[in-house]
Every structure is written in C-alpha cells, then in structure tokens.
C-alpha cells in the first residue's frame, strides 16, 4: 500500500498573529512553525499502516523552501521520503491542484490529510483533491481500517458518528480520533539522524493559477475588559439586558 500524507506548515497555536507589508503578509518573525496538528493525527495513522501492514509513506508539502524543516520532522517521525512542491500556497484550490498532479503520477492508494489547517482553517484541500483525482473521500474521519481494497471508516457528524464503507483509492481528511493524542510521536535522536539522509525531492509547479487571493489581513477589534460580577443576579441581568443572549 502506498500512502501519501499531506503536511501543512503552520504557525504554532501559541504564536502571535501579526501582519506586515500593509497587512498583506503574515509576519513570520519570531514565529515557530510546526506540522499542522490535524495532519499530525493523519501522519501518525499512516505510521501505523507502515508498521502493521507494510505500507510505504511519502509526505508532501506545497510550500517554499522555508517549510523543509517541517517535512524533515515528518521524516524523523518515520515517513520514508518527502516531496516539496515549490509554490507559495496562497489558495486552497491551487494547493489541491498541485497535489493532484503529485497524486496522479505517484500511484498512491491512500492520501491522508488533516481535515483543516490551523492557519486558514479552510477545510478545502482534501475534498478538492479527491474530486480532482476522482478518489473516494471521507471528511472529518475519526477512524479507518483498510482490508485489501475495502475501507471502513468513521466520520464525525453533528451530534454523533457515521460508519461508512468504501474502497481504495481514497482521500481521508482526519482529525483527533483517527489516532488519539497519546499516540502522537515525538521524533527521537535516531529518527532525526535518519531523516537527514532520507530523500526530499523538490518539484516545480505544474502551472496552476490561483483562483483566490488575499487582498489584506485584519485583526478583530480589541476586546473590552471582562466585566466581573460577584453575584448571579447581576450576571443574569447583564446576559439578558446587555448581551441579550438569554
């Protein structure tokens, strides 16, 4: 089984969010980048398939050279090789089309991604990719098994879960549940050493044109200070008369 895991390179959740160049660019100054937390769940599931079912695992990122440490981290966790598509990922559709070119040429059975990225939270890429390459697609996946070409999966729905059956080839957009938090792996020294020698292939754009562009960023208006009360009557009164939410 050949697995491709899509990795987004995102600011750590605790990062300060600021913008430069007249609010048109994200300010990366002092920001620590990590593997997108949602992708990490899917990567960890891929490791399970590698160890238990002999799958090979390739990781891919659409991004500029600055994302390579994030791909190396995925290699240190245990992926076999990595691909970086040398494009600035400004639009979800653009990323999906670049990934589709990789998937079409790669002969993958399973494409695993996170259901969203922690930067744009768009939830766009996995579904677009599946449609572009005509793979089956399960979104918001919290469990999956592969038996031959048959796939059983569980997805989260409003207020519960749905079990589905489908088949390879497939795109899975995973989240917590596809593995648990305790299953996530921290690269060890041996993994980090080995990752340096694993192939990281850089490919150029397949010539995709973006369909959206960010004109500017803005931050929400600063929030007023919390109003503290010392009794529940005042709280109910404020929620009813001021906030008008009860």
């Amino acid at each position, binding site marked *: 089984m050949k697995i491709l895991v899509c990795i987004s390179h995102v600011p750590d959740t605790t990062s300060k969010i600021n913008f430069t160049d007249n609010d048109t660019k994200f300010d990366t100054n002092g920001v620590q980048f990590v593997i997108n937390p949602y992708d990490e769940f899917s990567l960890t599931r891929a490791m399970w398939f590698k160890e238990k079912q002999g799958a090979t695992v390739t990781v891919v990122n659409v991004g500029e050279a600055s994302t390579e440490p994030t791909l190396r981290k995925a290699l240190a966790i245990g992926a076999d090789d990595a691909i970086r598509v040398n494009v600035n990922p400004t639009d979800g559709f653009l990323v999906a089309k670049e990934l589709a070119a990789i998937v079409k040429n790669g002969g993958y059975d399973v494409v695993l991604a996170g259901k969203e990225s922690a930067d744009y939270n*768009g939830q766009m890429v996995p579904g677009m990719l599946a449609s572009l390459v005509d793979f089956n697609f399960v979104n918001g996946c919290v469990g999956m098994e592969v038996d031959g070409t048959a796939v059983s999966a569980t997805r989260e729905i*409003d207020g519960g879960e749905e079990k589905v*059956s489908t088949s390879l080839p497939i795109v899975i957009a995973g989240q917590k549940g596809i593995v648990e938090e305790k299953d996530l792996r921290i690269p060890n020294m041996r993994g980090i050493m080995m990752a340096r020698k694993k192939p990281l292939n850089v490919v150029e754009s397949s010539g995709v044109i973006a369909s959206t562009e960010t004109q500017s960023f803005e931050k929400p208006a600063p929030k007023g200070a*919390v*109003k*503290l009360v010392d009794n529940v009557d005042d709280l109910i009164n404020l929620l009813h008369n001021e906030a008008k939410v009860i």
Partner: protein
Amino acid sequence: MSVLVFADSSEGKFKKTAFEVVSYGKKVAEELGTNLVALTINGGDASELYAFGAEKVLEVKNDLSTFNAKAYASIINQAADAQSANVVVIDSSVDGLYVAPMVAVAMDAGYASNVVALPSSTAPFTVKRKAFSNKAFSNTIVSTEKKVIGIAKNSYGAHENAVSGTAEAFSANVPEMGVKSESVDKATGVITIADADIVVSAGRGLKGPENWGMVEELASVLGAATACSKPVSDLGWRPHSEHVGQTGKPVASNLYIAIGISGAIQHLAGINASKVKVVINTDPEAPFFKAADYGIVGDAFEFVPQLIEKLKAFKQA
C-alpha cells in the same frame, strides 16, 4: 445568471444554517442585480425559505435516505448549471464543509470558506473570512467567474425577509456514490454543540465526573448543549464528543459559559467564535478572564447551583 444556495436539512427538517444561507444569498443576489434560487434535497417545507427571501425553491425528492457528499455535490452542480448560477452559497455544517470543495471542483469555481460577512465589493468579488483560528480575518478576492462561498456558522445570521415564493421539482441524476453509509450513531433528544445557541462547558475545576450533574442541569435550564475541556475528555470524565477546542469541536454559539476552565490557548482557539463568553473560575489569573465578556471569580460549587435556581425563576417570570 442567478445565485444558488443549498438549504441543508436533516431528516426532512431545515437546519438553522439553511435560513442563514438563504438570508445571505438573497443579499448577494440583490447586490449582483439577479435572483436567488434555493435548492433543497429531501428538505422541509419550501415556504419556510420564502420567509427569508427565497423567491424560487428547487426541490429534489429522491430515495437518498442519508447525506452522501458525492451525490449532493453532483446535484448542487447540476442545479447550478440549470440555473446558470455563478455564485453558490453553502453553510458550514459538517455536511456543508464536506460537500463544498467537491462542488467547487465540479464547477471549476474559486472557493472561499469561513466567510463572515457580505461581499465588501462584487467587482472584484471580495469577502471577509476567518483565519488563524479566529485570531484574524483575511479579505479574499475570488477572481474566477464562478464562485463557491462557504458561510461561517452563526456569523451572518438569519434575517427574515418574506417574499412570495414558488417551489418546483428538480430532477437530478445521482452518480455512483463510492462511499456508502453503514450506520449512524447519534444521540437523540439532546442539543448538539453544532446547533446550540448556548453551550455550557466545564473543565478540571469540577474535580470529578460525579460533579457534572449541575453542569447538565444548568444546560437543561438554558436549553444549552454541554461541552468540556480537553483534559476532562482525556481523563475520561466526559465523552470525546464533548471536547471543544482546537483539536476538538469548534464552537460558534451566541453564549459560551466556561466553568472551571482555565482557558489554554488551544481551548480558546476553538471557542472564540462564540459571541458572548462567560467564565466562572476561582483563579482570577486564569487566562480565560482575558478572553471573556463577563466573569465571576469564585467557586463553581457555590455559584452554579445559585445560577440554576435564579435562572429557573428568571425563565418562569
């Protein structure tokens, strides 16, 4: 030319978000000088949509007993084609988020998700979107001729705008689906976090699962959903399905009440789309106080029972 909205439903009843997308689509259609068409698939009564501005409702009735993303995406695309719709508006329910990217590919449309407001301009078509876990917004230009717009939950809101509408049957081909539903496991009779106007959430400050009775009672008095912080679900005090925060469920309710939750940044990232936030915590230094609108520095075991009693009296008044 027209604007098409997909009015999603569950078991024959429109979701709250259906009225939100119709309200939004109506305004966009007005700005573009065109008409609005709402599409329903085994949905509710079309007149419910007329109340929010849908002049024309296309009703698909078929034997799809549950949602299927590929089938729904194909039907939405066929309707967009038949109505020459250049703008398609879809909600951010679990199903909407599943289907919208597939619709965008089928239409070869630029797709902007997480949109929180009407377009600031229609030429170029520019929309404001949430980004960086609600810590910022991006003003995005959708430059393609066809566009799919995903509306963030509880952002634009439903606005009554009664029109005299007409409904007509729309017959669409259903493609081979690829993914088959085997079973659905859904709590019945409880308000889900996704649908709730009010969410009551509690954390480790409650000391143990045996103390959740008052959280459930407070939720029941308010007609709210219950939720919990990540440590609480990791400890097994509450089911994973209640975990809200960055890796758990997102919350975009009108009111979010946090009891004994300190407010780790990952928790706040998942809930800060809620409009009004209340915190009850013994520790005045808890980071949640910086994110909250209203707060009580005090013991949940003292204040929550009082809040339940007073709210019961308030609801009866």
